[in-house]
C-alpha cells in the first residue's frame, strides 16, 4: 500500500452501505487499514439516510443492490450534500441507472490495493 493512499485517507469519515455482512466487514477493514474512519456500515437505504443526517461524512462506498432495494436514493442524497462516493457492484457498470451511468464504480471482487487506489482517485483525495 502506498503512502499517498494512507495519507489521503487519514481522518476521512467514509459511509459504507452494503447489505451482505461479510462484504461489509471486509470493506470496513479495508477503510480502517487505509487510515479512514467507517460510518456504518448500513445495510439499507433507511439506515444509510439516517446516518447521513446525523453526522459529517467525507465520502461513501455504496453497494448498488441492497437485496430488496437499490442504493440510488442514498446516492441522490449524497449528490445534494456534495459528498463524493463510489459504487461497488457485481453488475455490469453499464447497468447503472440514470443519472448514475458512467459514475465511478469498483467491481466486485476487488483487491485491497485496487480498492484503496480507486477510492483515493475517485473521491478526489489523491
Amino acid at each position, binding site marked *: 500500500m502506498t503512502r499517498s493512499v494512507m495519507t489521503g485517507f487519514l481522518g476521512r469519515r467514509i459511509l459504507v452501505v452494503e*447489505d*451482505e*455482512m*461479510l*462484504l*461489509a*466487514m*471486509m470493506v470496513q*477493514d479495508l477503510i480502517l487499514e487505509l487510515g479512514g474512519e467507517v460510518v456504518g*456500515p448500513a*445495510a439499507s437505504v433507511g439506515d444509510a439516510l439516517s446516518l447521513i443526517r446525523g453526522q459529517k461524512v467525507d465520502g461513501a462506498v455504496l453497494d448498488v*443492490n441492497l*437485496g*430488496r432495494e437499490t442504493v440510488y436514493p442514498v446516492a441522490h442524497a449524497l449528490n445534494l450534500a456534495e459528498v463524493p462516493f463510489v459504487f461497488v*457492484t*457485481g*453488475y*455490469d457498470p453499464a*447497468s447503472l441507472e440514470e443519472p448514475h451511468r458512467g459514475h465511478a464504480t469498483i*467491481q*466486485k*471482487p*476487488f483487491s*485491497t490495493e485496487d480498492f484503496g487506489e480507486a477510492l483515493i482517485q475517485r473521491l478526489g483525495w489523491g
Partner: protein
Amino acid sequence: MPTGAFPRLEPSDYRALFEASPGPYLVLAPDLTIVAVNQAYLTATGTEREAILGRDLFEVFPDNPADPEADGVRNLNASLQRVLLYRRPDAMAVQKYDIPIPGDPDGAFEVRYWSPVNTPVLRADGTVGLIIHRVEDVTRLVARDQRTAEIERLAVEQAAMIERLRQANIELARSETSLRASEMRFRAAAEAVSDILWTTTADGRLAGDQPSWRAFTGQSREACQGLGWLDAVHPEDAPATLSGWLSAVDSRMPYEGEHRLRRRDGVWRQFSVRARPVIGEDGAVREWVGVHADITEARRAEAQRRRLLDELNHRVKNSLATVQSIAQQTARTAPSPGAFVADFNGRLLALSHSHDLLTYSDWLGAELCDVVGQTLAPFSSERVSAEGDAVYLAPKAAVALSMALHELVANAAKYGALCGPAGTVDVTWRVEPGDTDMQTLAFTWRERGGPGVIAPSRRGFGSRLLEQGLPHELGAVVSLRFEPAGLTCDISVPLFEARR
C-alpha cells in the same frame, strides 16, 4: 407455211439446223475433245468457236477455282463415262457449273446452274462415235427455286413465329391467371399469419383494402389510406417512422424499422417492419410490399434473459467477494498457515452447504431445522440436540445463520463443549408470539460440560460475525456469555427481516 409437199432437206441443211437450234449443243469425241458446237452453246457459255474446237472439254471448262465445293467436272465426267459404258443417254441432275467471265481481266467466274443431258451417237458397229452434250442454262430457274425456297423458309419461319406468339399468348393468359392466384395467395397468407402484410402505391401511400392491417389495428379501410396508418403507430415512434419511410420511398431502398402499433383493443405491441419496392420491367417502382412482425414476446424474453444473466453475474461476483472477505478475515486472525487453511476450508464449506440447501428450493429459502441439522451433522445425537418451531427463512437469513452456527460449532470443537469427551450442546429455538410483523425468533446455543471457558482476549472472525454481522444483516440482537459451565449464545431475530 405453205401446205402440200415438204421441202427436201439437203445434208448441208442439217448443219444449218444444228447451228440454228435454240438449245445449246456440244458434240464430243469419245476422248472428250470438242468436235462441234452450235451458236446457242457459244452464246450460253460466252465462248468462241475457234477457241474451243479440238480442245479437251475439261481444259476449256474447268471447275471454278474460287469455289472449293465445285464438283461440275467430276459430275460431268462421271455422266460422260456412263454414256460411253452403257451407250445410253444420261440426264444429269442440275449442276452448278460456273463459267469464266469472257474478257474479265481477273479471270473471274460467273455462277451458273445447268441441266445437262449427254446422248451417245452410235456407229454402225454399236460403239460410241460421238456424244451430244446438251445443256440448258437453268440459272434463272434455280434462282427462282432458290427464291421459292427462301419464301418457303420465310413461310415456315413465319408459321413458327405465329406459333411462338400463340404460345406467348397462352403463357400470358396463364401468368395473368397465376398473378390473380398469387394475389389471392397473398391475401390468404395475410389473413393466416400473425404478421401484418400490406402494400402501398409506388409513392408509399397505403391504398386499397388491407385486411390484415385492418384486423390488427381496427382501423377502417378509409382511415388507413394514404398516410392514415400512422395514427396506429405510437406517437413517440411516428415521426421517426414517417421520415424513415419517406426517405426509403424516395431512394427506392428497402425499408427496415421498428415501432409500436396500437392493437384494436388499445394495447401497444412492438413490431419490426420490413418493406421492399416491387420494380417493374421498365425499372419503375410499381408498388411496395411490407410486413409487420410482432416482436413483443421476443423482446420480453430477451429482456428476461438479460435480467437472469445480470442476476447470475451479480450472485457469482457477490459469492466471490464473500469468499474473499472470509479469506482476508481468516488470515487476519489465523496463528499459522495450517490454521488458516483449516479455518478457511471450514468456513468455505459452511457457505457452500448453505447454498446447497437453498438450491433445493430454487433459492426460495430454507427451514431453520434443516440449517441447524446440516451444521450439527458431524456430531452424534448424544453430544448435540436441536429442537424448535417450524421457521422458514429467506435465503439471506439462512446463509447468515448457517455461517454463524458454523462459527459456534467450530469454536465448541476447538475450545468448548465438543472438544472434550463429555460436553454437550443444546440448540433450541421458538417463535415469540405477536403480530405477524412483530414476531421474533428466539434462538439459543447452550454448551454444557466442556472445559471451563474464559472470554477470549481477542475477538476473532466468529465473534465478529455473531456480534456485528448478524445485527447488521438481520437486525438481530446477539449476546455471547462465557459462563463457567460453557458458552451460551442468545440470538433474537425479527422474523419480519428473516422471512423477507
